[in-house]
């Protein structure tokens, strides 16, 4: 197939290291991401664009927080919970972080089993990942409900700077949307894996293209990115 001609460049042994290698890859007679499949390169480029969107959100939040003369609410206290009579600061967010990290772990293993063509384990690990993701979104729904009950709105809150609410709903809402889409994506691919679509090279319903096990890695990239963004939100919004 055409893809073979594009990717099999016959230079496996003579791969140049460092900058000469980059220059060679990007040179006009070459494909820039040689031996990197288009699916993977496109997912990376999409994630780069998503990085810019999240950067803009976090930047606007930084600007709002730095320029306001009204005290910023203390996130440690805002997200504290009373568990068994104990007042524990930021505990909900900590648990959400561990849930999302665990989902990244199971996803990484799913990719591994995918390339080994272990259909059942791959699908099972992807479903576990989706379950962690759904748990995360559920906890976020709880967090939103609690804050809305306490009077947090996009235009104000009981503890200080009104921009807190706008930043909170915008940033966590956009991230939660990503997680939700990821859960749907995971279940869709897990179903294809389990059905053996990638073994029989069954054509997709929507694109009518053949699917390969690499899609598990590509969707893994998306999932790990969601976890990656949370690392930054955790640091800048909840800990800062």
């Amino acid at each position, binding site marked *: 197939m055409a893809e073979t001609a594009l990717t099999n460049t016959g230079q496996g042994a003579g791969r140049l290291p460092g900058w000469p290698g*980059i220059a060679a890859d990007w040179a006009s007679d070459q494909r820039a991401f040689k031996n990197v499949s288009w699916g993977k390169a496109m997912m990376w480029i999409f994630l780069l664009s998503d990085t810019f969107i999240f950067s803009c959100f976090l930047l606007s939040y930084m600007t709002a927080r730095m320029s306001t003369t009204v005290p910023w609410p203390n996130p440690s206290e805002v997200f504290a919970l009373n568990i068994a009579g104990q007042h524990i600061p930021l505990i909900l967010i900590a648990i959400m972080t*561990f849930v999302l990290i665990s989902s990244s772990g199971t996803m990484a293993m799913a990719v591994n089993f995918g390339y080994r063509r272990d259909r059942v384990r791959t699908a099972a690990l992807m479903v576990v990942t989706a379950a962690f993701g759904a748990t995360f979104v559920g906890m976020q729904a709880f967090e939103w409900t609690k804050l809305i009950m306490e009077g947090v709105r996009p235009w104000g809150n009981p503890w200080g700077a009104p921009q807190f609410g706008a930043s909170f709903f915008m940033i966590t809402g956009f991230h939660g949307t990503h997680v939700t889409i990821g859960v749907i994506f995971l279940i869709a691919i897990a179903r294809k894996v389990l059905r053996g679509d990638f073994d029989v090279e069954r054509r997709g319903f929507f694109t009518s293209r053949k699917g390969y096990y690499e899609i598990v890695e590509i969707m893994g990239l998306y999932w790990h990115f969601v976890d990656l963004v949370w690392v930054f939100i955790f640091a800048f919004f909840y800990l800062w």
Partner: protein
Amino acid sequence: MTNAAVHMEGQLHAPAHGAVATGAVHAKGQQHPIKLYLVVWGWLFVLSTCSYLVDYFGLHGYLRWSLILLFMILKAGLIVAVFMHMAWERLALAYAILLPPIAVMVFVAIMVLESEYTHFLRVLFFATPS
């Protein structure tokens, strides 16, 4: 089909990644031992716990900010390098993806100056400083 490319990739990556050189030469795609993922997973747990403890013990000032940023960068690095396999990708791809976000730092610097100026004006004309 892609398998040809993927197969080649496996061979290309094997020497760079000594631990799997024997096992993964004939494997397809990004194949690394499960143990590696488990180790990274464990580290992410440890680092997240450390981040949380920074808040739990109520550290303040430069110590707090530097620890938060340190744990954040280590976590992000582990996820991108190992879970997203960037450590084993072609340099052309790695630089194309990793360099642009660094340019965002310029934007950050601009907005820091801008918000400090806005804050200054607000203090001067509208409010008492917080």
